[in-house]
């Protein structure tokens, strides 16, 4: 490793890096703007200037030259000075010039208090502004309900477009005009189209792009109470930092996890937690009266009711793949494994079990996101990851750049030389083949796209597997041979599939490809997306033979069970309405624990309000089999309790033996790990409640947290005692130590002089490396020994039938997931449910775009969208959207023009008149 000297001190640094990275990694402060650890260097802002000396003699003579840290490779024996006068003056002058047009609006800026520009300005010592001219002013744009635009604050570091265009593949944000007129925005006002636009909030070093939801319900970072959490928007398990004030969840920031989400989230994750503040949240337990209305109870009486119901009846339970392993484990304990359904839709349950089984069996590695980024050839089979597991799509976008990095390596270019490598590679990309029943937002970087019916996707996948195995190709399978050659020729080939198109055959084909690659001696990876935050945990908990809804209904109809407990699950999203009505009607009593009012809670005899992920601890198992713990960001109101608290109290009231040793949340985790072999690793997801950081707890509040005394002064001038957290090593206070703790217990990032999220490098061992305290979560899946691939030919090819269309799910990042769709901002982006047909199929029905279609015999009436990427004989439908609940994926249905359909008026894009109002 090279040794460099900085201001007279010698340091050993990682070879191949640049000086800025190395300096930050050493814990030294060097200001910067345009550089970003995930996006490399372009040397544009000139802020990280340092003095480099040719040799010791010139160092002693003070004859050095100014170089940019981010563009200077660390070479053995290099001599630098950060503190050298000229470098210091240079950096101060740079900030002063960047600030020429920057308004003095910090007190009303949403970035204030966590602004990288503020931090850097203080760091370089710039205080007095000498410029006396007029400042440029710009008109702001309406960029949609999620992102607020305030262009006057821009310092033209170009990070926004480098992120949005180069990193995330967006096309509708650009640098416009030139010189000091430069403007970062859209051609015209309108919603930013990228599914990852929200990261601009964290990427922008100042307040040009801010969280629009936060701007309108504002709290400064230092006044937020936050805790390490895990996104519940999909199964990827991105680590998040939700922030709370006054009992309201204010915003979600990224929590760095080097193996999962790195520096970025998707917009469903960032903005999809607003449901926590919804008016539909349940605050009190409710007992249904004869007239169908509910009486509010306190939790003592509610618990009595629950206990009485449990004593009287024979219990059955339906768990939930969207809530924690622990809550599900307790309900399963309460009702008994034979009477516990994991809570998947009947058609979904075998798919999730299959996804788990394929990953357990396959010798291919289940990749984390960092490994996905390292893939140099990818085949996506049937899964629209941008809309089902969005963060994976962003990782796949990086994977296609591995060809560019290979080209750069040939020339001796380091990977951080961002502009040079993009220039070198132009449109050269590693191969990514996408096969799906329609278009997907990743198609623009694909080497090939095949839009096929699910059965045909499976056929193609099997043909690829056969081709890799060297079996002779059938005629007409040139594409399979092409894909096989790309995968077999790669060092780290990856196959991505999942439950998104609802076909087990497709996932089997994906596994067959991965297995064939392993057999051929490749280090293959197999990634299978599942629908929800804890789908995989639920499959591990319940096993493949767990009863589904039909089985529970039969048991109820046979009189074996008569009381149903439903845990955080709106059953009406998991089957058609009549079907769920019959299921619930088969039980004498229905008790529902959930967070929000929904169709299922409205059918319950007793409703118990459950705390959300932000008010409760829990372990979730992500699609890569990573168990991760989330912690309450704030305590729930008095009568709303975490589901595990309700269930544990009930078990104790019933004096059940299993509950005897359960006192804390951790005890449940450990009991679950002891009882369920597949989950034996989960206690290691995070330290238990005994953990202390250097003898003290870890604070959820920053040391500058203000106004705690005044917060409730309108109610009482007596400040209540802060709530005690008996369940974790975190505390609801500002006292304690947020430093050098395990990675899973990081409640916020802050370091002296570094108030923004850029302080993260102070918590990393090296820039872009793991957190010093270790990477959060524990992997539960190991590669299997794998069944040898047989020459399976897969299913029969798809045949379109006259007058019948096969329903293929079309997943949407906004709308297909239940809770995020209820969050402010995202609710504006959810479109009404739709059905998609190719134009030939639409023509045969005599219908046009915007007409209404009736699906089946009154199953649904949906708006038609013409989409020529939908295979003939297939009809795409908006999965998970209101109005499409009755549609069974892959079923064949009739289609006809809906009578009396009102076409929607063309939508006018709204505007809030730009910014300036924060």
């Amino acid at each position, binding site marked *: 490793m090279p040794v460099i000297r900085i201001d007279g001190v010698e340091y050993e640094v990682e070879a191949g890096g640049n000086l800025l990275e190395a300096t930050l990694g050493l814990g030294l402060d060097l200001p910067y703007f345009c550089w970003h650890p995930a996006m490399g260097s372009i040397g544009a802002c000139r802020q990280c200037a340092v003095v480099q000396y040719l040799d010791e003699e010139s160092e002693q003579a003070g004859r050095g030259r100014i170089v940019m840290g981010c563009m200077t490779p660390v070479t053995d024996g290099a001599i630098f000075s950060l503190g050298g006068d000229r470098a210091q003056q240079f950096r101060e002058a740079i900030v002063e010039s960047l600030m020429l047009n920057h308004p003095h609006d910090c007190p009303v800026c949403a970035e204030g208090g966590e602004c990288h520009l503020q931090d850097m300005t203080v760091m370089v010592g710039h205080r007095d502004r000498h410029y006396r001219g007029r400042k440029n002013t710009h008109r702001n744009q309406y960029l949609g309900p999620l992102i607020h635009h305030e262009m006057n604050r821009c310092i033209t570091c170009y990070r926004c477009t480098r992120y949005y265009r180069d990193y995330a593949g967006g096309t509708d944000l650009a640098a416009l005009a*030139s010189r000091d007129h430069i403007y970062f925005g859209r051609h015209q006002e309108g919603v930013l189209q990228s599914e990852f636009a929200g990261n601009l909030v964290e990427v922008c070093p100042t307040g040009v792009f801010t969280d629009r939801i936060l701007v309108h319900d504002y709290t400064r970072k230092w006044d937020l109470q936050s805790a390490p959490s895990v996104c519940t928007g999909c199964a990827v398990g991105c680590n998040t930092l939700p922030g709370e004030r006054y009992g309201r969840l204010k915003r979600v920031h990224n929590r760095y996890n080097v193996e999962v989400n790195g520096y970025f989230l998707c917009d469903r994750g960032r903005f999809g937690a607003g449901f926590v503040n919804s008016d539909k949240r349940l605050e009190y337990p409710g007992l249904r009266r004869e007239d169908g209305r509910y009486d509010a109870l306190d939790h003592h009486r509610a618990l009595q009711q629950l206990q009485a119901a449990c004593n009287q009846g024979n219990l059955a339970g339906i768990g939930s793949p969207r809530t924690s392993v622990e809550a599900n484990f307790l309900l399963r304990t309460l009702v008994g494994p034979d009477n516990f359904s994991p809570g998947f839709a009947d058609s979904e349950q075998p798919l999730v079990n299959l996804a788990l089984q394929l990953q357990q069996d396959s010798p291919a590695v289940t990749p984390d996101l960092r490994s996905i980024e390292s893939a140099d050839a990818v085949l996506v089979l049937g899964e629209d990851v941008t809309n089902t597991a969005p963060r994976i799509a962003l990782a796949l976008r990086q994977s296609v750049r591995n060809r560019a990095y290979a080209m750069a390596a040939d020339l001796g270019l380091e990977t951080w030389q961002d502009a040079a490598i993009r220039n070198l590679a132009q449109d050269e990309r590693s191969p990514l083949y996408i096969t799906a029943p329609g278009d997907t937002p990743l198609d623009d970087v694909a080497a090939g796209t095949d839009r096929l019916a699910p059965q045909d996707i499976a056929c193609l996948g099997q043909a690829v597997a056969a081709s890799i195995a060297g079996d002779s190709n059938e005629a007409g399978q040139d594409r399979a041979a092409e894909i096989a050659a790309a995968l077999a020729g790669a060092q780290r080939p990856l196959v991505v599939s999942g439950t998104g198109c609802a076909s087990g055959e497709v996932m089997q084909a994906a596994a067959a490809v991965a297995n064939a690659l392993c057999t051929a001696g490749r280090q293959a990876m197999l990634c299978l997306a599942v629908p929800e935050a804890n789908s995989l945990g639920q499959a591990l908990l319940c096993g493949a033979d767990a009863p589904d809804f039909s089985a529970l209904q039969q048991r109820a109809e046979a009189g074996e069970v008569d009381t149903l407990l439903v845990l955080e699950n709106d059953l009406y999203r998991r089957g058609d309405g009549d079907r769920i009505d019959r299921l619930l009607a088969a039980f004498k009593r229905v008790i529902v624990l959930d967070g929000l009012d929904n169709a299922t809670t409205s059918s319950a005899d007793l409703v118990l309000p459950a705390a959300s992920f932000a008010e409760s601890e829990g372990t979730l198992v992500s699609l890569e089999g990573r168990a991760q713990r989330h912690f309450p960001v704030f305590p729930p109101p008095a009568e709303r309790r975490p589901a595990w608290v309700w269930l544990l109290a009930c078990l104790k009231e019933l004096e059940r033996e299993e509950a005897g040793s359960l006192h804390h949340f951790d005890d449940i985790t450990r009991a679950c790990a002891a009882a369920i072999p597949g989950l034996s690793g989960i206690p290691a997801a995070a330290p238990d409640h005994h953990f202390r950081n250097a003898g003290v707890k870890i604070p959820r509040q920053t040391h500058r947290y203000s106004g705690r005394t005044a917060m409730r002064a309108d109610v009482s001038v007596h400040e209540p005692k802060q709530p005690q957290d008996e369940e974790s090593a975190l505390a609801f206070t500002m006292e304690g130590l947020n430093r050098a703790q395990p990675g899973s217990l990081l409640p916020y990032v802050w370091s002296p002089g570094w108030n923004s999220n850029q302080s993260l490098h102070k918590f990393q061992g090296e820039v872009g490396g793991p957190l010093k305290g270790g990477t959060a979560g524990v992997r539960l899946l190991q590669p299997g020994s794998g069944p040898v691939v047989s020459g399976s030919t897969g299913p029969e090819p798809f045949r379109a039938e006259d007058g019948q269309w096969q329903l293929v799910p079309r997943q949407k990042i906004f709308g297909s997931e239940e809770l995020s769709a209820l969050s402010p901002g995202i609710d504006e982006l959810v479109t009404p449910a739709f059905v998609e047909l190719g134009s030939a199929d639409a023509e045969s029905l005599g219908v046009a775009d915007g007409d209404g279609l009736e699906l089946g015999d009154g199953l649904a009436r949906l708006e038609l969208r013409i989409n020529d990427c939908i295979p003939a004989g297939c009809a795409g439908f908006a999965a998970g959207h209101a109005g499409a609940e009755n549609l069974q994926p892959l079923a064949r249905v009739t289609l006809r023009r809906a009578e009396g359909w009102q076409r929607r008026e063309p939508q006018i894009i709204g505007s809030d008149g730009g910014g300036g109002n924060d």
Partner: protein
Amino acid sequence: MTDLIPVLSDEELREINAEIAHVPVPAAVAIDALKIVQAHRGWVSDESLQAIARHLEMSAEELEGVATFYNLIFRRPVGENVILLCNSISCWIKGCDKLQAKISAQLGIALGETTPDNRYTLLPVTCLGACDKAPVMMVGEELHENISEQGLGDVFGEDGG
């Protein structure tokens, strides 16, 4: 909304396509296409820009970035004759400020404005490459060298055109 965008004229398309024939990707002729449309229409409207972007398989933002980078691609309507008055160092030494004041007085327009009869638009320009003959300006396609305050009358007429 995209349906409402008027297509480019056949002549414009023919000229743009002739340029595309010389390059590997259509987006490479972005500047030429903007110039072609401006030559036909005097300026590049939002609708024209969107139509060009679609034809070149670029996003409107990408093309807008190009169009607004260059000060001689006009994204607002201009008069029949664009006056490009050089204000670079040589022309500044030779008194372009006075000339500008004179033109503005004569035509009744400030920099960036168009006369009510739509004959002239006055714009500053950083260099016309004729520093040895400063001060200089272009009116339409014609370069005027060594201009004096008196000489302006010859160009615009005493009454301002």
